[in-house]
């Protein structure tokens, strides 16, 4: 017991254990959905397995590093990642409509995965070292452009899902650095309300109530409060106008999210099939390699973004819940570092890592169970993808390293 406590004091067993469960689920899901396939896909499991081993080794080395090391490499890493993002736009390989891959022989490398970590590290460094004053417009602009430069490059690659991730990550880091929450509210609440207005009147009312509550907590002066509130209200009424600006393809996606059964063979097909796969899993699932939706390839590229449907079908409620609990434990343990982090730098890096993992988790699981629109982003540690696994593991390594140096409260 004593030994265990001592290990726990230097190494967060919970995060590592959750990490092992998730990668194991990933390997099982990838094995099940690809091993009987023909063509290069059939090697996915072996590739992922090799990457898992390699990632574990990397995890150890990253864990061994100190905070200063990350601080030091953040700027060159950021520059390298921007270089790669530009390179991929010129010489990238298009996979699934996104030009986001660099091909190195047998290995395809996704620079956006590197950019995620690099941007978090460098933005954190910039925000802490320069002692940014968010009341200064110039400071806001410079720090925002550090975050949004890679975001725009990724958007140009046609990888909308990942650019979403960047926005969420940058916004949370700003929020934790002390960016005025009221300003955030002013910027974000109309966007949120437009998004929610697609789901009918009840979510809007709930959100308006939440905004009213936030305004009450934040206590700005009464006139500003009324302005913000009215602005949100008006933007929700302008939804119809904005909705009409959307291209038919985008409209269709939104409609399909709202009612997948309406178009079962078209865009809603995947959502429906995923729900069928997961729903038919039952309590303990159909068994490893026994999911007919999976084995019969009803969902395209199940080993990537839709990997949860494989687990839900073959391992049932038991498997899916374990997946959700593992993520929750991992993210909760990471969030503990918000208050116990050794420095503001490590806190901001932790916030960035937490946010992007959290967002991936919400979207990737949420879309497979019909709670979120289909945004093509993978489930961290679980979905097939070597570079994603490697950089997500590095992120965990950074967190574990920070944990080592945390302050106890």
């Amino acid at each position, binding site marked *: 017991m004593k030994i265990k406590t001592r290990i726990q004091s230097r190494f967060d067993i919970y995060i590592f254990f959750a990490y092992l469960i998730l990668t194991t689920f990933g390997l099982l899901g990838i094995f099940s959905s690809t091993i009987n396939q023909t063509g290069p896909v059939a090697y996915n499991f072996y590739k992922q397995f090799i990457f898992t081993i390699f990632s574990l080794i990397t995890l150890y080395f990253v864990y061994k590093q100190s905070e200063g090391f990350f601080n030091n490499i953040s700027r060159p890493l950021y520059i390298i990642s921007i270089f790669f993002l530009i390179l991929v736009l010129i010489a990238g390989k298009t996979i699934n409509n996104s030009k986001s891959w660099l091909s190195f022989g047998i290995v395809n490398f996704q620079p956006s995965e590197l950019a995620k970590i690099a941007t978090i590290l460098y933005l954190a460094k910039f925000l802490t070292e320069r002692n940014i004053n968010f009341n200064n417009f110039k400071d806001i602009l410079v720090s925002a452009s550090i975050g949004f430069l890679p975001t725009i490059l990724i958007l140009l690659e046609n990888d909308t899902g990942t650019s979403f991730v960047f926005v969420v990550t940058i916004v949370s880091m700003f929020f934790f650095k002390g960016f005025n929450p009221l300003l955030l509210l002013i910027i974000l609440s109309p966007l949120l309300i437009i998004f929610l207005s697609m789901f009918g009147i009840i979510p809007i009312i709930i959100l308006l109530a939440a905004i009213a509550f936030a305004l009450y907590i934040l206590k700005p002066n009464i006139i500003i409060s009324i302005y913000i509130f009215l602005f949100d209200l008006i933007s929700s009424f302008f939804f119809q106008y904005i909705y009409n600006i959307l291209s038919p393809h985008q409209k269709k996606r939104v409609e399909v999210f709202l009612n997948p059964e309406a178009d079962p063979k078209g865009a809603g097909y995947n959502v429906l099939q995923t729900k069928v796969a997961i*729903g038919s899993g039952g309590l303990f699932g159909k068994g490893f390699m026994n999911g007919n*939706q999976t084995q019969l390839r009803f969902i395209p590229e199940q080993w990537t973004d839709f990997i949860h449907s494989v687990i839900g079908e073959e391992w049932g409620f038991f498997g899916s819940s374990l997946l*959700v609990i593992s993520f929750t434990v991992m993210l909760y343990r990471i969030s503990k570092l918000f208050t116990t982090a050794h420095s503001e730098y490590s806190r901001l890096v932790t916030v960035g890592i937490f946010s992007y993992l959290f967002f991936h988790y919400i979207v990737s699981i949420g879309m497979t169970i019909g709670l979120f629109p289909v945004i093509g982003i993978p489930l961290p540690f679980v979905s097939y993808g070597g570079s994603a696994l490697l950089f997500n593991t590095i992120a965990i390594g950074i967190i574990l390293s920070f944990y080592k140096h945390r302050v106890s409260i």
Partner: protein
Amino acid sequence: MKAFENFDIPLSIKSKLLQYLLIIISSIFIVQLFYLQIINNNYFNLKSSQNSVKGIPIQPIRGIFLDRNLNILVDNSPTYTIKLIPAYFDTSKARLVEQALNLEPYIINKLIKANQNYSPYIPIRIKKDASFENIAWLEENKSFFKGINYTIELQRSYPIVSGSHVFGYLKEINKKQLEQKKDIYMLGDLIGSVGIEKTYEDYIRGEKGFQYILVDSKQREYGRYKDGAFDKPPIKGYDLVLSLDKDVQKVAEEKFQGLRGALVAIEPSTGEVLAFVSSPEYDLSRFSAFTDRKYWDSLLIDESKPLFNRATMSINPPGSTFKILAAIAALEEGVIDENTTIGCPGSFSYGNRSFKCHGAHGNVNVIHAIEHSCNVFFYKLIFKIGLDKWASYARKFGFGNKTGIDITEEVAGVVPDTKYYNKRYGKNGWTQGFLVSLGIGQGELSVTPMQLAFYTALIANNGVSYQPHIVKGYIKPGTKEIIPFKFPKINTGISQKTFDIVKKGMFLVVNGAGTATAIKMNDIPIAGKTGTAQNPHGKDHAYFIGYAPADNPKIAIACFVENVGFGATWAAPIVKEVVHAYFNKNKNTVKDSIKVTNKR
């Protein structure tokens, strides 16, 4: 910006905010997972199996038709259908395939295009009824032409007789039929549409089998579902035993070559149809499995109307063959007896019209009136019977109603009576003069050859028989037992004495000095009656009704030949040949009956 200055939330609250968000969202996920996987599990399970398990119907073998002596009349023979799976086929080889299989140029590309909206793993039929050479070629070049294969399907074949109007054909099921019988049929299924194929569809259809296979989202096959544990083999339809006699049918068909008309032969004691011909016939084998469009169109425009079933659908006045009915009515009603004579001066005047006889017969009794087909006798006779009495006797023999023969395309014909004329011409719009022509089977009386045949059978069997039918029963699988279908007994209630008298007359028609002595056979005495029906559109229609052997009838026949002239010249010889064919085969029975004849 002053309002926003110095405004921040404490770190602990920010952390708590995200932690709560995490816990709430994870809880929602768990609840939703519970809802999908536990509460709605059954629904999604069903969806999932419907998705990925596809039942491929296996068509059952349709029951075949046997004649009364169990010779196969309608059989199933294998036919090859060549199919193409677009996903596996290299379209650059399309021309080669088209040439080798004698297909229309560019048809493969057209078919692939036409099926573009379906999964490329669903096979497309490119050639139906392929020849053995085609299959041999395909087997040889299988590895080069990937994605092309063939399946064996069964189609009807007719080894002995044509029988087009009896057997009928199958057609692809239409929307209306499909809606009514959704649980049995599927789109594209063939269903009996005419003849016995239609009437006995439920017996001969059998039951579809299913093979369950696993398919992926593109309908690509992945193997058997649970190793075929749930597969259902198809159940073969019942074989039907027909009352037709292949030899009689064959001869009747041959004799009608080049003629238009119909012949129906019935076994008098049972109502079983021994031969059923409507001419011209059409080639049923070109209808089997897939209707040959060009052939169908050619049949539709053919002015001899080969698709028209003359035996049960054509209605014409029966001419002198109906004199027997008038005689029966008169005898039964007591207006004449065997010895009553009526004078025939060669013509009959009614009002200011004169109706001719073919000769002056002098004073004739009913037997000789039949023998010589004396018109004047019957002109006068019908006035003695009265219209409605006469009509009621006609109905007793089934005229004016469908006979109930077991093919559905049948019409009732017309037996005029007072009610009919009143309706047609008004109460005062017609006179008793209308009766004159009815007496000799002309006028508005119209009958089908089928009705005439049954009438003949009833006369032959002294007024008692069974509803005429072509199918005797079906063969029970396994035991091979023949399960007979039951048909209602029909009794005219007419006295034996009356039949004895008219049958004497009918015997003399062929064997005395009557109108059909030319067909007299010494070994098998035929009794009958000729008829020639005037036809305003051309030459007269020829009729002959008859049965044989005269004293113990085994076969009763009505023969109708369109637009040729005298019944005695055209129809009677056909009947003779048919009788000959029937008894030649059953020589023993004939001899027996002859012996009896000699004793008497």
